[in-house]
């Protein structure tokens, strides 16, 4: 009982996301300690144990065995597994480089083998195994079919398809025009820009961490924390009214969350200056505009002179500004999250008259 409540408490979004972020960066700082066979054994047996014991709980069982959620349970194992695998290879390669030995991949690059049979047979086996898995899966788990569509009875919670739940989770922190349109667009643009921003010639065609620490850390933060983790959070831990529910908690439609979120304008005009909100929205949101414009326009030159100076020098102005813009856009999400968790901040700029809320 106590353990269940403890787990319910530590899976709360603010804790889960912060802890996962810290864990990621610490593990990248000391990869040799984290990405070893032993740690994998511990983590994965822990995960299996957790899952095995937890399915006894009816609330937990209900949510993980929902047909559409089963693949996501699989993903819960696959993504950490491949993260561990890629970084273990990277650690090994970095060790080899340090010792002056050739990379794991290098031992075999000079070798050319015949595609038939070496590759074709592997592919054949792969396809057969996959077919067997798919058929087995399909025979044991029936595809869901609920009541016929009824436009007047919206279920609670109404969830988007699972791979978009990261975006739906973003709606907690941002309005739809950002979470549903601008950010997804920037994710696509950002992904496409990667090869043109990253001019580091090293680490092309082999696993490494040391030679690309910055790129890999940034990508892993975006992919693992801001995408995969949010998908998992949105799938398993968000219930009616998009409220948070721990994994063993009953999805109670009447659960109330106190909504006391406050806009930046109120914080400044009402609480700090004691003046009351001005009528004109532009004056009212003056401080918000200053904050956002500073973030987007003043930060890049500042970063170019300080923290990211070395990138400014190697990338040149165009690449650098593209990179910082994308980076700042990405970091807007965790920043807004932290502001929400700490200060219940609702909008930095809030002009609902024009649907312009940030």
């Amino acid at each position: 009982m106590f353990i269940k409540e403890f787990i319910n408490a530590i899976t709360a979004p603010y804790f889960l996301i912060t802890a996962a972020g810290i864990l990621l960066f610490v593990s990248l700082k000391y990869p040799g300690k984290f990405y070893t066979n032993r740690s994998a054994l511990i983590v994965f047996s822990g995960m299996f144990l957790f899952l095995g014991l937890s399915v006894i709980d009816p609330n937990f069982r209900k949510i993980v065995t929902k047909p559409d959620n089963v693949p996501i349970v699989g993903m819960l194992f696959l993504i950490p597994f491949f993260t561990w695998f890629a970084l273990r290879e990277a650690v090994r390669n970095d060790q080899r480089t340090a010792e002056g030995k050739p990379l794991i991949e290098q031992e075999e690059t000079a070798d050319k083998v015949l595609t038939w049979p070496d590759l074709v047979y592997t592919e054949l086996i792969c396809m057969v195994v996959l077919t067997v898995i798919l058929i087995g899966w399909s025979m044991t788990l029936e595809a869901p079919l609920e009541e016929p569509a009824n436009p007047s009875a919206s279920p609670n919670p109404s969830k988007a398809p699972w791979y978009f739940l990261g975006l739906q989770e973003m709606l907690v922190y941002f309005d739809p025009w950002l979470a549903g349109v601008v950010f997804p667009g920037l994710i696509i643009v950002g992904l496409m820009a990667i090869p043109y921003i990253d001019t580091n010639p090293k680490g092309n065609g082999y696993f490494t961490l040391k030679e690309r620490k910055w790129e890999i850390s940034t990508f892993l933060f975006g992919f693992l924390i801001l995408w995969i983790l949010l998908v998992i959070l949105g799938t398993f831990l968000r219930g009616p009214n998009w409220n948070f529910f721990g994994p063993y908690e009953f999805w109670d439609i009447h659960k109330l969350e106190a909504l006391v979120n406050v806009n930046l304008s109120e914080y400044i005009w009402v609480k700090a200056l004691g003046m009351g909100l001005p009528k004109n929205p532009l004056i009212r949101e003056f401080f918000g505009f200053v904050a956002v414009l500073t973030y987007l326009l003043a930060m890049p030159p500042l970063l170019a002179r300080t923290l990211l100076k070395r990138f400014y020098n190697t990338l040149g102005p165009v690449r650098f500004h593209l990179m910082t813009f994308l980076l700042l856009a990405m970091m807007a999400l965790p920043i807004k999250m932290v502001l929400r968790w700490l200060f219940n901040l609702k909008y930095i700029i809030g002009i609902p008259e024009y649907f312009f809320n940030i």
Partner: protein
Amino acid sequence: MANFSDRLKETFKNLSPAKVGEWIQESQIYRSIFRIGVPDSDRKRMLVMLGSVFLHLHPVKVRKSGIRMRYTWCMGGITFFLFLVLTFTGLLLMFYYRPTLEYAYVDIRDLREQVPLGIMREIHRWGAHAMVIAVWLHMYRVFMTGSYKPPREFNWNVGVILLVLTLLLSFTGYLLPWDQLAIWAITVGSNMARATPFAGHEGPGAALLKLGDIPLVSNSSDARFALLGGRFVGEGALLRFYVLHCVGLPLVAGFLMAIHFWRIRRDGGISGPL
């Protein structure tokens, strides 16, 4: 007569699987299909790769490091295979499925209730989920091995578009069963389009676009309307999603995959350390 039965006996005595195999391989039909025959020598193994439409996707020889599962995780290939499986099962589903409000749900229900051992729908649905996960993992691998670096920048970009197409395929397919799960998932998803800056009627800036007093962007002329072919997820949306799902998007995706695979070869095969 005796002569004939003797001959028959003798023929059967000589009939071993190896002999039959040989006979088949020497037949004109077999030789017209498989020009090279069984690839039992290196020369034939190379010719086989060149002579087949399917196998010529691959080069004749590959770097040993590139075919390692530990390197590619097989994820690109798995994604492609799942796409083929989805095309095949999707085609079968199309025989039974009619994309109208009247029939869509009933057809799917009949598929589940009337077809003994029918698992096409299951394979299609689970395969679709698996494909999304496989694309993510494939992108993850390509990033972690730095394989987007020159000369493969362009192929990474083709990949990003393929990723978007995969998500769109899955999104459009999700509506087709026309149950509560389907329409509400699509409603939630497409509600976002309503907030598109300037182009959605609840997006920032849309209120600025008007002719005199008439707003240009309203709930029946905005981005969401264009997506759904209506003001809500209804008949128009079902047809649109069906056509996109079964014809439009698979064609585009297939086309881009051809480019993707071609470029892998042109860019020097699977990446590896120099």
